[in-house]
């Protein structure tokens, strides 16, 4: 297991990148602690797979350095870095048995057959496939195949990190839960450094201790699931995390008051002065629908089962509010924002509020 340091890493796919636009990965300066479980979360094309492939060595970064436990591995091959990677589509060696699939990486490294056997049996137990050892790998289900891909990484006891590239995409929903909890269990028991790429927020939030949110080739926020929810550092994080995403509306700030159209919203503190367009962000969960506050026009109510999502119009802007499953929309609906849950953004980045 190793600590992974990304030292000012930038990457462009084309030759001679000039402006920021040419970079798929603008600049990543980030430490993945030894034994941590990280999720890289972001929409398609945000550079998360690029970053993962740079860590695994499938890509060589245009700029920057990669360190494993302080040792520079930037110029080492994938094999020399000794990492494991699980891909979106299960990669198995069709013609081999489950046992041989797991033995493959060890045999390639010339490990004595006795050790191969011991390690493979251990791994088969870990991934719960011991009874399938002699079966041909081609006949397995997608989730079993994905476990084999994972097993080929686990079988090497000295792997520096295990990387996952959207590993559950082709897995049935009910198996996703099972696999994810098995992954967490493995992580807890053996303390692997794990980096997990996904665009599914549920997957990221349930798997990882720290979620790294990426947007447009940059890391916009790193935090625990709770931090991402309560204090998104960038409006993108607000949109991307949560369902529905955060309500963001342009406001004018004057001391401890925000003005939205003709409405005045009291803030818990005065935001620090900042340049750029000012916006106010509030999660739908913290928008209270009732008889007091700012008048809104409700356009539709979506019942999603556990709760209802109310779509309404406030001062010409669409906002969403979450209300309980049994609550109803009052005749003359009004909304109130929970003051402590309000975030203020300048130029899309969060600004701290003073007292």
């Amino acid at each position, binding site marked *: 297991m190793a600590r992974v340091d990304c030292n000012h890493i930038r990457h462009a796919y084309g030759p001679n990148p000039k402006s920021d636009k040419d970079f798929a990965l603008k600049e990543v300066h980030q430490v993945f602690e030894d034994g941590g479980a990280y999720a890289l979360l972001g929409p398609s094309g945000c550079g998360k797979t690029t970053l993962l492939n740079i860590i695994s060595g499938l890509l060589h970064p245009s700029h920057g350095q990669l360190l494993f436990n302080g040792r520079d591995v930037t110029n080492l091959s994938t094999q020399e870095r000794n990492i494991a990677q699980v891909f979106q589509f299960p990669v198995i060696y069709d013609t081999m048995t489950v046992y041989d699939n797991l033995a493959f990486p060890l045999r*390639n490294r010339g490990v004595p057959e006795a050790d191969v056997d011991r390690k493979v049996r251990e791994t088969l137990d870990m991934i719960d496939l011991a009874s399938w050892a002699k079966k041909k790998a081609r006949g397995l289900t997608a989730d079993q195949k994905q476990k084999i891909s994972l097993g080929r990484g686990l079988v090497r006891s000295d792997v520096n990190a295990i990387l996952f590239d959207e590993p559950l995409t082709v897995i049935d929903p009910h198996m996703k839960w099972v696999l994810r909890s098995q992954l967490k269990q493995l992580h807890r028991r053996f303390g692997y450094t794990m980096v997990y790429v996904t665009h599914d927020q549920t997957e990221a939030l349930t798997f990882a201790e720290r979620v790294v949110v990426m947007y447009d080739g940059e890391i916009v926020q790193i935090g625990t699931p709770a931090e991402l929810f309560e204090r998104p550092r960038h409006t993108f994080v607000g949109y991307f995390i949560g369902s529905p995403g955060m309500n963001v509306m342009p406001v004018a700030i004057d001391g401890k008051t925000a003005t939205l159209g003709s409405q005045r919203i009291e803030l818990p503190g005065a935001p620090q002065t900042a340049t750029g367009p000012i916006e106010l962000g509030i999660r739908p969960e913290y928008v209270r629908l009732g008889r007091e506050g700012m008048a809104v026009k409700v356009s539709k109510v979506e019942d999603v089962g556990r709760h209802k999502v109310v779509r309404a119009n406030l001062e010409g802007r669409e906002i969403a509010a979450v209300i309980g499953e049994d609550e109803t929309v009052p005749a003359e609906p009004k909304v109130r924002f929970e003051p402590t849950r309000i975030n203020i953004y300048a130029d899309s980045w969060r600004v701290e509020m003073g007292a």
Partner: protein
Amino acid sequence: MEKTWNNKAWFLVLPVLVLVAFSAVIPLMTVVNYSVQDTFGNNVFFWAGTEWFEELLHSDRFWEAMLRNLVFSFIILAIEVPLGIFIALNMPKKGWAVPVCLVLMALPLLIPWNVVGTIWQVFGRNDIGLFGYYVNALGINYNYVQDPIDAWVTVIIMDVWHWTSLVVLLCYAGLVSIPDAFYQAAKIDGASRWAVFRYIQLPKMQRVLLIAVLLRFMDSFMIYTEPFVVTGGGPGNSTTFLSIDLVKTALGQFDLGPAAAMSLVYFLIILLLSWVFYTVMTNYDAER
């Protein structure tokens, strides 16, 4: 659901039955008719029974042609399959070179067979042929008109030139269908170049290779046009394959009875091969 039985539906298949009857069944039946009779012309026939079949199966000429056919098929498979795989592995996977390579590969396949024969007939001549002339200039005595081995070499090179592309294209199709993740995983697993070929590329090509081998085998077993144009079955009988022998018997000597018997045996062999082809393919699919 209740099934409706209506025998009028048979009328819908009638056109096909009529077509097949006229194009295949009736001509085949006339062949069967010839094979059990003897004729000296003027539409006078004598019953011959199984005489022609017995004669055929006891004739050295038939078995020699058959042996030549099998040896020929074996040699060209042994060359074209590995060569085809090798070329497919080395073809570019991306960029402008892909269409260029594909067109170059497809060219020999687009040339009519008798033209291929003519090309090589001229190409190999030692007086005006580019190939024949320079091979002789190198000090190698090469003359496909006189030397049986040279004739075989010419016919084999010609077939390799003509048909290796088919194997290449089929293998290439199998190769490009392998997702990048497989190669990346192999890198991570520390697989050697050979292991990548053995455990990733070959299994993915297995299916198309099977088709390639069977197609090439059946095709080479029926080969006629090219050797006919280049060597005419000679020198002597050294490149007289079954089909060439058949045409010689039927149209050269006008021995309709023996030729008909030979056609039927030849037909049964091809039928048997088609059956093997079909069975292997369907078994393979079931196994997947």
